[in-house]
């Protein structure tokens, strides 16, 4: 991005601006996220703050910006914890902070579409931790899926870092839960999945968020990761392109792979899109003045590498939605990467091509 802006300074209001990107690491710590945001605002004099990934990071950053009256764009956290988690309501929203991502309603629809592709008894077992994600999911999921005949067995929210999952495994076995869903952190899912196999629990389909986001985490689970499913926010197959560089999703992923030598990950598209939104808002405002930028953001519409974003038609003010599909991790024989993410559900987004259907777990 630094290279891009070096070649393409922003022309705003007749002035040419060199774009300086100051990066701070929140270390995924919410206290630190607030601190470094304050540093960016007070010490570096940032005109615009961008932040990504998980409510724990995004919320404190946005709160700090709201308090200081600095425009802020965030992504990669479901919009409900971002919006309601920061105390907003339909009538009482934010002045300075804007967000784009999917929400629980999308992941619920995608998971159910994937479940419906496999022959099951409609009994689902839930692995929900006692954290913002687990709380949000457990409050919302059971009621929504029951309308379609699914019953969720929720043994209770567990603490992240739990070492023994025999209680959950027994409960799932007792309920004959042929569907597994959850939003565990990667090491906890790896522990659970190994213990499930040791204790003979084998669901026919497993749709798991968070733990299966990164290819490295899937690889670390080992052979038994073959066939696990997850929601997909972005893949190189997405039919969109960057409004800045003109790269297609595939070209963006290829550029990342050739530069780092590592497999593409879903957040790549979203972090790129953050800069697309930033440039679109600044261009629309034709100024770096804060009020002008948030006025531009309030009804911004921009086509990015993660999809068409529209802040005028979001579910709530300050939020634009992004498309969500479902995917299944499949082991590749002698492929470039040990596991590839295959899109198997596009019920919510027919414009994004699927490459197969859900295959039941062995």
């Amino acid at each position, binding site marked *: 991005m630094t290279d891009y802006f070096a070649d393409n300074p922003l022309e705003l209001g007749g002035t040419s601006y060199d774009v300086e990107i100051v990066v701070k690491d929140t270390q995924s710590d919410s206290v630190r996220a607030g601190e470094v945001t304050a540093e960016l605002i007070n010490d570096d004099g940032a005109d615009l703050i961008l932040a990504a990934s998980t409510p724990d990071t995004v919320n404190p950053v946005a709160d700090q910006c709201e308090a200081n009256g600095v425009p802020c764009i965030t992504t990669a956290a479901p919009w409900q914890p971002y919006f309601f988690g920061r105390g907003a309501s339909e009538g009482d929203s934010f002045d300075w902070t804007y967000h784009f991502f999917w929400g629980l309603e999308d992941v619920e629809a995608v998971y159910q579409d994937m479940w419906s592709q496999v022959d099951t008894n409609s009994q689902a077992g839930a692995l929900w931790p*006692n954290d913002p994600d687990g709380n949000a999911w457990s409050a919302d999921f059971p009621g929504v899926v029951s309308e379609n005949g699914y019953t969720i067995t929720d*043994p*209770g*929210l*567990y*603490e992240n*870092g*739990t*070492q*023994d*999952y*025999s*209680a*959950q495994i*027994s409960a799932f*076995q*007792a309920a004959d839960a042929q569907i597994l869903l959850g939003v565990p952190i*990667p*090491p*906890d899912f*790896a*522990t659970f999945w*190994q*213990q499930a*196999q*040791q*204790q*003979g629990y084998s669901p026919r389909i497993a749709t798991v968020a968070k733990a299966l986001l*990164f290819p*490295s*985490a899937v690889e*670390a*689970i*080992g052979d*038994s990761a073959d066939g696990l499913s997850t929601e997909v926010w972005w893949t190189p197959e997405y039919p969109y392109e960057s409004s800045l560089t003109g790269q297609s999703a595939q070209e963006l992923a290829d550029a990342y792979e050739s530069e780092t030598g590592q497999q593409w990950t879903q957040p790549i598209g979203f972090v790129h899109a953050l800069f697309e939104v930033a440039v679109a808002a600044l261009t629309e405002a034709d100024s770096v003045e804060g009020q002008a930028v948030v006025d531009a953001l309030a009804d911004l519409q921009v086509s990015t590498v993660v999809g068409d974003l529209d802040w005028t038609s979001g579910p709530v003010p300050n939020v634009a939605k992004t498309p969500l599909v479902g995917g299944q991790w499949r082991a590749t024989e002698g492929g470039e990467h040990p596991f590839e993410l295959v899109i198997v559900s596009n019920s919510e987004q027919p414009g994004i091509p699927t490459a197969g259907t859900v295959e039941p777990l062995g």
Partner: protein
Amino acid sequence: MSWVNAVVQGILLGGLYALVAAGLSLVFGVMRIVNLAHGVLAVLAAFGAYVLGDALGLHPFLALLVVVPVMAAVGYGLQRGLLNRALGGGELAPLLVTFGLAIVLQNALLEAFSADSRRLDVGALGTASIRLGDGLTVGVFPLLAAVVGVLVIAAIGQFLARTATGRAMRATSDDRDAAALMGIDGRHLYGVATAIALGTVAIAGVFLGARSTFDPAAGGVTLIFAFEAVVIGGLGSLWGTLLGGVVLGVAQALGAAVDPAYGVLAGHLVFLVVLATRPRGLLPSAVTA
């Protein structure tokens, strides 16, 4: 049956905790040092085995043949070069030194290996199981971890009880100055103790790295549970540490059987209750160091 299952799985988990905590217990027993770098050192050993597996295709258990002696050597060097000096600086100094060491090591690992999760691949052993009855199946791998935990603790116990070095170690632990008058070199003995401790940490790290995924930040949780096992069992008592590990594991499994939210909490509560009612632990050190 689910209660029996919870207790059995809890005992196996406790064996693993004891394996992890053995080194911590030994170091505290001999030197009264709480090694806050213990968890990160276990992660370091796991990364060591990972690198060997990646480069040479070594099975994690075979990699132990290299990792254990290397970690033991690191332990000896660490004690002679760093911790022995810190020991002279009062009670707080070794604590701060190991705390700093933990942070430095964790960030060095992050620099070298990134935050990606890894796992040590033990093949079919990882998912193999033995069926003991209806609704009661134990994994071969947790069973192996628990057995190794007992063996490690028994081996250290025998070493302390029966060898000349072990006796000297206990003597130094009881009264370093008096032991020195008898011609025992405390600095060297402390080095040997830490070397043994880190050797066991290496074994623990490999088992931890194979039962779940790990990353440079994984040491924290490890340290907390190991520390609780040591305190519940009685500071400085090796068999107490085994008992403490089992009590902690069973408490967590039983708590989770009531409600998964109470799993980790039940472990912490038992820890607090023991600390409040029997501050010296369930088996206060009497014989061993």
